[in-house]
């Protein structure tokens, strides 16, 4: 560097270094599914993944999913199928989603900001399993299925049954027909707690998915006719975390408060509680 050149600015930019990784390029979904099982980490929009890598997570092999036919929102016999690489923005603007899952579409359309919504994907949000993200607990409350590549076919898993170490390639999520009409959410206390509620059509039971309060979102189920939803939800909740935002006690209490509010607006046998 000669004396006339300005000093490098790198030190002023606070950049986080990303550890080197190998890029895995695949041409189709079958190859992606195979690579995922072999340990390649799928990347949808990368919103969460890049952040994690900047904070030190080492990924040996990264597999971008862009270019694969994994996006799109379509009505099916069973409800609404949302491809894993569908962005938040595409889902929020989808006519099919507006028709078949308007509350879920409204939730997704209000997450973060337009720049994030145009890059972040439904599949990426689910598979990150981040406690503060909204899509996965919403799917739990909706009674949705996760659809994974499985050999030459597909395997369905209830959203709440997603394992922390799941390595199969997520292809889509499926929201059951009619579930959205019995779905509501409250994100007003995020990032302390968020609660997503769904009423089971067959039993009248209340599904309550709780975000932000534990290492991973989790699902509670209250039987139909529960007379004190707030107390029952708070009692059923495993110990929430305490951190700089809120104590465990406060989180537990607020889960009850939000659950009771949601139960009141969802038609069902315990609506008066």
């Amino acid at each position: 560097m000669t004396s006339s050149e300005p000093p490098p600015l790198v030190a002023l930019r606070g950049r986080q270094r990303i550890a080197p990784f190998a890029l895995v390029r695949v041409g189709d979904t079958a190859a992606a599914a195979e690579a995922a099982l072999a340990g390649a980490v799928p990347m949808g929009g990368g919103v969460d993944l890049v952040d994690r890598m900047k904070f030190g997570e080492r990924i040996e092999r990264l597999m971008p999913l862009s270019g694969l036919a994994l996006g799109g929102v379509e009505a099916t016999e069973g409800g609404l199928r949302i491809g894993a690489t569908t962005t938040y923005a595409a889902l929020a603007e989808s006519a099919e989603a507006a028709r078949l899952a308007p509350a879920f579409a409204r939730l997704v359309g209000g997450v973060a900001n337009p720049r994030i919504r145009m890059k972040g994907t439904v599949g990426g949000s689910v598979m990150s399993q981040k406690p503060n993200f909204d899509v996965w607990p919403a799917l739990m409350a909706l009674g949705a299925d996760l659809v994974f590549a499985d050999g030459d076919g597909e395997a369905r898993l209830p959203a709440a049954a997603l394992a922390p170490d799941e390595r199969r390639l997520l292809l889509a999520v499926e929201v059951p027909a009619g579930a959205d009409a019995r779905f509501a959410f409250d994100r007003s206390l995020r990032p302390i707690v968020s609660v997503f509620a769904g009423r089971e059509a067959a039993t009248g039971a209340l599904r309550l998915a709780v975000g932000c309060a534990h290492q991973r979102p989790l699902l509670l189920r209250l039987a139909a006719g529960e007379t004190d939803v707030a107390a029952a939800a708070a009692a059923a909740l495993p110990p929430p975390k305490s951190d700089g935002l809120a104590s465990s006690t406060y989180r537990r209490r607020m889960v009850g408060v939000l659950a009771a509010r949601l139960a009141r607006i969802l038609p069902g046998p315990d609506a008066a509680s």
Partner: protein
Amino acid sequence: MTLTVSFTINGAPVSTAVHPETVLADVIRDEFQLVGCKVGCDQAVCGACTVLVDRIPMAACSTFAFEAEGRDIVTIEGLARPDGTLSAVQRAFLDVQGFQCGFCTGGLILLVTALLERDPDPDRATITDWLGSAVCRCTGYLAIIEAVETAARLNREVAA
């Protein structure tokens, strides 16, 4: 290991060798010296590094360079016409002084450009939703909102 990535930047086709872990902001700034792309938070939150990728606003700090393959990148340096005439959004920010220190302004102008391409006459709720994509620590946003509304009006006047 490096790979070659080819894309257009401000209308010019380019190719460059990058490591897989290289982010787009580094290429834009270090390789092409387009330093209007600022790196602030480095976590895709503040929006100072926003560029348009196929007309979609993206945080260049958290977009890998390999994701730019075959795509059309526009930075703040590519928004004015070759003769120096500012775009309507640039003009509006200047006219209403929708900035103070200016660090966030390039990203904001690109963000607003993308907004007005999708919604030529956005209401206040839409504008504030979009401005949630960027952080300005100086203005308090009121002047920026006025700039967005002014830009929309300028666009309408040009179209009329």
